[in-house]
């Protein structure tokens, strides 16, 4: 069973309003006793310990690094590991999953994107994330929820639809490409986000023709997504994507660009949006791929 759609007026303007829920909606569901297996709330943060300091009552935790990444190969977990992970959290194939997290839902969007690789149908974000829930003085608890594990089917991960690899990006050059990193990462003066640790890219710069729209541009000051109109102005007009039928977004390891992927795919309704998770840590270290430095997108090199 799934939970009802949040009928908020703000969401109705988005292409897929069913992908967002408001804090009021979630509160009402929790107050009404809606829970697993109809609805499971998942917290996904950058900080692996933030959930333990207090989380939405009943919420389970999924960590991007220790849960979703394969521990050995640079890839995501496979269908068996995913089934074990989410089944162990009380999530069934038809459960409504609402994900929220810190930093404007940065990591929550990443987790949602990974759920999408496994074709989990009903997965939504809590608009405003953890910060808004706390700002509204809603309940937090340190109590670990009692979870009844359920059987989740082993589904083969399907990367084609929403995930791009390096060769896909090379073949894509000339079509809309969005670099969602900070300006200094884009122009090549840094290889990691300001305030973040160095994480191996040998060269600085960006993929030729990519426009720079830092991911957090999509968020309002309170951490919620900007309105449909504002987002259209940023991406459709500002990034010149127009009605493009294929868009690829990237960042450093694919987490910030998951957030932009969510905006393009679910809020603005672009149908063919892929996240290049290899992103700059791959491209900036790969041999003989074209790179542009400076603040201009640059042109496609002759090949």
């Amino acid at each position, binding site marked *: 069973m799934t939970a009802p759609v949040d009928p908020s007026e703000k969401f109705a303007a988005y292409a897929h309003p069913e992908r967002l829920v408001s804090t009021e909606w979630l509160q009402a569901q929790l107050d009404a006793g809606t829970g697993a297996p109809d609805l499971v709330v998942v917290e996904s943060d*950058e*900080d*692996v*310990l*933030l959930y*333990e*300091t207090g989380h939405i009552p009943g919420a389970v935790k999924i*960590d991007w*690094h*220790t849960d979703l990444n394969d521990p050995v190969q640079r890839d995501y977990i496979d269908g068996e590991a995913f089934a074990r992970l989410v089944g162990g959290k009380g999530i069934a194939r038809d459960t409504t999953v609402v994900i929220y997290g*810190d930093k404007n839902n940065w990591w929550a969007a990443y987790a949602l994107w990974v759920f999408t690789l496994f074709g989990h149908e009903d997965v939504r974000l809590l608009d405003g994330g953890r910060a808004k829930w706390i700002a509204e003085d809603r309940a937090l608890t340190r109590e670990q929820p009692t979870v009844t594990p359920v059987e989740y089917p082993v589904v083969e991960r399907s990367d084609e639809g929403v995930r791009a690899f390096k060769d896909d990006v090379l073949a894509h050059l000339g079509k809309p490409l969005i670099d969602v990193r900070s300006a200094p990462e884009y122009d090549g003066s840094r290889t990691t986000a300001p*305030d*973040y*640790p160095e*994480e191996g890219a040998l060269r600085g710069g960006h993929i030729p023709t990519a426009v720079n729209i830092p991911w957090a541009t999509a968020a309002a000051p309170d951490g919620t997504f900007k309105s449909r109109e504002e987002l259209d102005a940023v991406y459709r007009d500002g990034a010149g994507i127009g009605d493009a039928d294929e868009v690829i977004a990237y960042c450093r390891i694919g987490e910030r660009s998951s957030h932009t992927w969510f905006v393009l795919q679910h809020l603005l309704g672009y149908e063919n949006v892929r996240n290049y998770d290899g992103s700059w840590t791959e491209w900036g270290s790969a041999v003989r791929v074209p790179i542009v430095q400076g603040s201009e997108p640059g042109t496609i090199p002759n090949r």
Partner: protein
Amino acid sequence: MTDAPLPTALAEIRDDFLELSQQDRLQLLLEFSDELPALPERLRGHEDELERVEECQSPVFITVTVGEDGDAPGVVRMHATAPREAPTTRGFASILAQGLSGLTAEQVLAVPADYPLTLGLSEAVSPLRIRGMVGMLGRVQRQVRAAVA
């Protein structure tokens, strides 16, 4: 690097972690995080004068004193501050502050650079995040080295 035995406080912290299951190790890290002492009064409001730990993803600032605030000459004390929203970083800082404060400068400098990797947190927290603590230890040692030079 020397072969000096690990100071007792650091050895005990390590053993406490290694005794626990992965999930309980996170809980212990949370306890450390909760216990990070506030900065002494004279440093409050001057966070920007402290050294920022670039290896950590969250803003964390550290400073080290040697033989100040009533400590015997040559005794090290580490102070750190990090926001509540960054509990992992606070936990790392708290482990080092508790484990290093009270040691002599010589003892602090003898702590192996890979001490954070021995706490058994790589699986629960991820190796990438542990690197932040390695960076923090390195910065403490550099400050101590500068203070006694």
